[in-house]
């Protein structure tokens, strides 16, 4: 799921399942058999165990959340990282987007970098074909079906039908809530270029080759604004940054940004 390209992104290991496996290991390490007994809550014959089990364990391993030693699986992160779904999302995101060579990262980068073009592809198969065309070879329909669950979970957008509405509100909010205060102060004006330099380092999947701010990130900024968690400013005589142009929206040009404490709610 999160290995270097090409790595199959199966639909079976959903975030919920990976978290379920991680949580089983909070109390004590378990063998695969013990995990299986607990996950299925019945003595399930090996033939009836689907790919979702093994691939969920693999995904958890790939994210560095669990480890295997002497045929026993153990939790590799502090239990607090999986105590809540939100904490799990944040740790998973930090791991999932760390490997820029992974199929997952590359597809994320392609999808949100494609802006509105993604709406040309009305089903996941067409989206996979477009990803292949863009250079992410071997990506198929099944990969996209698996990818969407994680992309949506990690906060890149909102699934509706066969589309993922690109809006990184959840992803950006997570980063602002956890890391922003390490570098900046809340409720202070920050030059937009500094802000985006910092932010894009935290969310590398959103970085565009031409330096533009893509639709998913622009929508995130606008949603943060609508939520009262961020205030985009356009001050005179300041170097502006341009969001993805949306004529109907008042925020297209930004010189400064104020991130409000409310983002941590």
């Amino acid at each position, binding site marked *: 799921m999160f290995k270097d390209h090409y790595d199959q992104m199966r639909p079976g290991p959903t975030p919920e399942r990976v978290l379920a496996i991680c949580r089983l290991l909070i109390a004590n390490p378990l063998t695969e058999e013990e995990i299986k007994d607990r996950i299925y809550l019945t003595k399930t014959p090996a033939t009836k165990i689907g790919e979702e089990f093994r691939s969920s364990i693999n995904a958890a391993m790939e994210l560095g959340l669990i480890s295997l030693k002497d045929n026993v699986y153990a939790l590799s992160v502090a239990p607090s990282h999986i105590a809540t779904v939100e904490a799990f999302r944040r740790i998973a995101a930090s791991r999932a987007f760390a490997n820029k060579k992974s199929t997952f990262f590359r597809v994320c980068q392609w999808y949100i970098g494609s802006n509105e*073009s993604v709406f040309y592809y009305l089903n996941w198969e067409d989206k996979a074909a477009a990803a292949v065309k863009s250079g992410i070879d071997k990506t198929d329909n099944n990969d996209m079906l698996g990818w969407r669950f994680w992309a949506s979970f990690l906060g890149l957008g909102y699934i509706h039908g066969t589309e993922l509405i690109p809006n990184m509100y959840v992803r950006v909010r997570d980063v602002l809530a956890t890391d922003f205060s390490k570098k900046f102060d809340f409720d202070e004006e920050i030059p937009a270029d500094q802000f985006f330099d910092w932010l894009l380092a935290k969310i590398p999947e959103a970085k565009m080759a031409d330096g533009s701010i893509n639709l998913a990130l622009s929508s995130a900024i606008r949603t943060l604004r609508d939520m009262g968690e961020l205030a985009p400013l356009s001050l005179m005589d300041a170097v502006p940054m341009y969001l993805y142009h949306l004529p109907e929206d008042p925020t297209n040009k930004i010189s400064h940004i104020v991130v409000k404490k409310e983002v941590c709610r």
Partner: protein
Amino acid sequence: MNWLSASTTMEQRAIKTDVIASEDAYFMATHVPFANLEIQRGGSQLITGGSLHWNEEEVYQRLIYNPDNIHRMIIVRGNNGTGKSHLIRWLRARYENDKDQYDPSQEKIIFLRRLSNTIRGAIKQILDEDIVFDPDMRAKLEKFASSSHDMDAEKFKLNIYHQFIVALSSATDKTYSKGVRRDIAAFLSDPRIEQHMLRTGGPVDRCFNTITAPSDQVFNGESTTFTEEDFKLSRDIKRAIKNSGSDEAENILGEISDDEYVSKLVKYLNSFTPKVIQGCADISSESTKEVFLQLRRELKKQGKNLTIFIEDFTAFTGLDAELITVLAAEHGGENSDLCRVTSVIGITDRYYSLFRGNFTDRVQYQVFVNAGSYGSPEFLTEMTARYLNAIYCDPKKIEEWFDNGAQAKELPCSGYRPEFPWDTTIVEGKEFTLYPFNRQSILSLYEALSEDGNSTRGYEKTPRMFLLYVIKEQMSRFFDGKSFNQWNFPSEDCIFCPIFLKNAGHDSAIDGMNHLSEADRRRVKILLQFWGNGTASVDTDTIGAIHTKYFADIALSKFTGFGGSSIPDHESQGSSSGGNEGEEIVSEADKKRKKNLQDRISDINEWFTSGTTLNYSADYRKWMRDFLQESINWPSDGIPAYIASQRLNDPSAVYIEGQKETTIKEKAIVVLERTKESKDILAAIVYRYYAKSWGFKSGVYFQLRTISWLEKNKSRIVSAVTQGINYGSQNMVLKWCVAVEYLQAAFLGISIPHGDNLAIAQKLLTDKSSTTNKTSRASKNQAWEGAIRYLSAQAASYVDCHETFQESLRTFMGTDVSDKQRKIGFFRSRELLDVVSTYEQQGWHLAPADTGKQDTGVYKVATYMNNLLGKIQAATSQEDAIALSVIARLKNHLGEVTEDNIAKLLTSVSLMFNAFSANHRPVSGALLSAFNTDAQTTAKKVVDDYNALLKAINETDAVTKLTLYASDPIASLLKFVENLDSIDKLATATTANIQEEMTMLSGGKDIKNIKQCGIDTLKRAHDEIKKLEVPNNAN
């Protein structure tokens, strides 16, 4: 430009309230030539494909100008407001001003206008034309023309009514027999009927109005004096006639319940209207004809011919038949004393259809003024330009032009131009401004005069309505703005279609512009929709294809549109116009789909702007539920997908204010009030549904609106879905589910392997709906058995609870929890194990749940759990009582319940059985079998059972007590006690038998010793048993 003066010119000269009454100069200045008039020979109905197409000049040259003196009756047909009068008025003016072809010494022109739309007005014009030569006749007509002024209206009306009765009584036709006519006359003469017919708005009132209606009344149809409604009488009137009316009146009263009878009567009475009017004027039909015959004779004598223009023939009601007869009489032959007549008569299509018989054989030509004559963009644009020019022009110039012959080419041009480029059109070779209209607005406002389809909202799309309700209406508002800075221009008062921009995103964004007043936002929208291209896109010098300065010109400078003009090209990144154009997708899909989309968008706009009920709310609510189910990452918010699915599958989950369906607002998960935000959300899901994608035009804007709305409302939605329950670790629903499974197992006697959390979890997760417990317990505990029967009766509740338990723990891929293919037994087991662990640590002390009176959704589980808990007390109390009784009986046999005592007793029983056997005494096989056990083992089991019962009896926790009793521990102890009772009975009975036998055998010496031996043995055994038994009074 002096806007106040222009406004006055419009009101007093160019566009008077009575359009027909405009001055000749302005009439000529504003007249738009008819370029395409449909012409048909003869007076019969229009034959499709059998007509000619001429312009108005050709009509004039070929039909009006009549140098060969050919008799011609020409009718100009068309509906109200289409321009018949305009054409007739122009033809007359054209002829009068035709210096080359018109010779007043040879031709008399009479023009009878539609003044007042009344017969009085018509007669006044006849008098004014000085064509009534008979002094008596003139006197009578003059009296009539002025009488309705002077005469008391009530008297006049009474006269009209009596004239009807007189006309009816003196009729000689055969429509009705004389007797029936007499009855009808008597009926009409009844004072109650007279009062009814003289009521305001009644038949007499209508006839009176035909004669004397005020001049500003637009005549919308032909005289219809009586109607069927007039004969729908109230109960009081009917009762009064029955009680005190004449027999004749009562006869008719009996007939008028028949619709056909009434229809015939109405038609019959209406046929007297002309005669009644003549009667009121005290003139006869013959004398009326004579007026016009005398005129023709007189003209003939003078060597003249007659051309008569009648704007609206319907005004001649009462004289119409006579007039037609006279005008139809061809000169020459028998009528050699009459002059030639060319008559041009305007009639509506309806009048023609009613009185076709008068025209069919008499008319030479019909000229049709219909949509083909005036509906073209060119016609409407020129019409607008001419009126605007007349309004802007100095009135003196117009008058001068008219006085100089009103030559079209010489028509003065106002020369007015706004200070920015604006639409113009060429009229008579000159460039006329269309300001403040433009081409686009002229056509679109004309189209918006009425709704499509059969709706009765709005006005007929005719030149008259266009003039009054587009040009005059908008210009009045425009002048108010310019003169008094009170801006209500453009006005939406005469727009009968939804105000909504083609670019839905722009439409929505304008609604959000709080720096504009609501009225100004509305003006902007009307402007962009009707003047512009339906968008607010900024381009060089324009917004929505309308010049930017125009916005400032009408006090809308605060509106700056939407566009990327401030963005340097090299930095502009994409735009919302990218992606799939929603409308293109729709149009490619099919027309029906597009219409459905438009219907729904209009529905939403009407709902928002006019407060109407949503016609398609069932669709919106369904699509909204789908969106919520899919777009919220429920597991990410810690909510089992199953729970979300269950809650959002309920159609009442979404409530929209003004929805068509009846659902309870308070029970809804999402409530959309009638707000701009809701409008946007609804529009978004509708566009998305029909485009099958979020890539429709303005899709990015709507995505943003929708996602921001979603995030703002997410916590509320989540709370409503979860019914306020936190689905985190140790969540209540899971606890309730586990409790239900645990209690279900207890009542059904399924043992729970305490001490092994995983095993407990597995056991609990097992479906127990197929497990049946025997309803009768050894204890005959009726309360317990009642609980078992309750479980059976509530099987469905358990199934629901179990499904909630299992499915809310299951992991899903996506939100489609109904997809069995993806239904894998992959559980979030940690949560279950944690709950089991907690309960184990707490000794399964289950307390009733506080449901807060909620009984829907997951609270059903709590309710069921509470019900089960409610069964425990009765069941266990009764079980306690039974257990105590069994223990008492046991102690009765044993004294103290110890393994030793039991073992001794069992040994004695064994000895007794041996004695019985030796003495051939029978013992039942069952009893032998019951005691054919290892004494120590049995003793231990009895003590264990005894202790188990004591433990259960002494347990204070109800649930624990239930589980202690669950395996029915009373049963085995009770059996043991019952077996002891049997032994006791057997011993007693056998002793009695032996003593009886001994008595019988006391005479026999030989067997005496044998008998004594047996008795001794049995006695010893019996004594042993007796020793072990606790005396009845021991306790």
